[in-house]
């Protein structure tokens, strides 16, 4: 169960790395320096987390899943669309890590909580708003 959950998180991080690599190429350092910095910071964070998950899955004796060949994305031809896609990526990562919290224990769960928190806070950099239950929005209606 835990390896499967970690593989799901790894799949999400593969996608996040792919998205941020794309967004980095669509963001002008000269015209949008703050956005450029945020996108590149996010890329480094997600790449590091992806690599961590690969190690953890391999240590568990499983074969880490590979990234998809490509991901279907909306057009990201303006800074506003870059921001929107980055925000959505963080929201999806937050949801993935919230699920990982539920499917892990001990140190791995602690790691998942930190990743959830990071994604929740990072989305604010991309014009996100504070939520009542980041990563677990369905709880808002309970």
């Amino acid at each position, binding site marked *: 169960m835990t390896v499967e959950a970690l593989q799901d998180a790894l799949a999400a991080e593969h996608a996040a790395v792919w998205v941020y690599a794309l967004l980095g190429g669509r963001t002008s350092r000269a015209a949008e320096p703050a956005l450029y910095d945020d996108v590149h910071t996010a890329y480094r964070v997600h790449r590091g987390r992806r690599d961590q998950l690969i190690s953890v899955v391999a240590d568990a004796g499983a074969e880490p899943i590979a990234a998809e060949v490509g991901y279907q994305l909306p057009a990201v031809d303006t800074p506003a669309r870059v921001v929107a896609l980055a925000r959505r990526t963080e929201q999806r990562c*937050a949801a993935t890590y*919230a*699920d990982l*919290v*539920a*499917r*892990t224990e*001990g140190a791995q*769960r*602690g790691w*998942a*909580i*930190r990743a*959830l*928190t990071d994604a*929740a*806070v990072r989305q*604010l950099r991309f014009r996100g*708003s*504070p*939520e*009542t*239950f*980041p*990563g*677990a929005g*369905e*709880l*808002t209606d*309970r």
Partner: protein
Amino acid sequence: VPESVPTSAPLRRRVTRRTTLAAAGPLLALAGCRWGPAEEIDGASEAQEDADAALAETASTAIGQQLAALRLDADAHRGLAGALAPLIALHTAHLGLLPTVEVLPESTGSPSSTKAWARMQRAETRLQQQLADIAVSATSGTFARALASMSAAIAQHLADLPPLANRGPA
């Protein structure tokens, strides 16, 4: 999550056993019932269930105390009231999923808005960490997920706080 809360007679018996809890929220206040899907519930022992109920009570107490402190500060320092409102709403919403526990504020208010603001940030940071720690200890994954989300929400709100300089006079 409603689908995870059993509504069988055994659940009702367990809820009524919890005499220390004044009332129950929409999730039957966690205490006395188990979070999680059926397969998780079936595998949990009564001891684990009781442990999660105790953790829920601990979380509710911690959030309730911080909420009471925020309300005191908002009343004492009108300039802070607007900035504290989102946190008050957040904690109130979180408490709605947890057992109701009567709490008394531990603080008596700060003499200045600057001190109140700084104390609030420290207390919220502590609460965020405490909820994360409780989540790690929880037996039920679904319960842990909810607590982790509450912790992350506090981090989000802290990151989104306006600067104190904009808060006006105490």
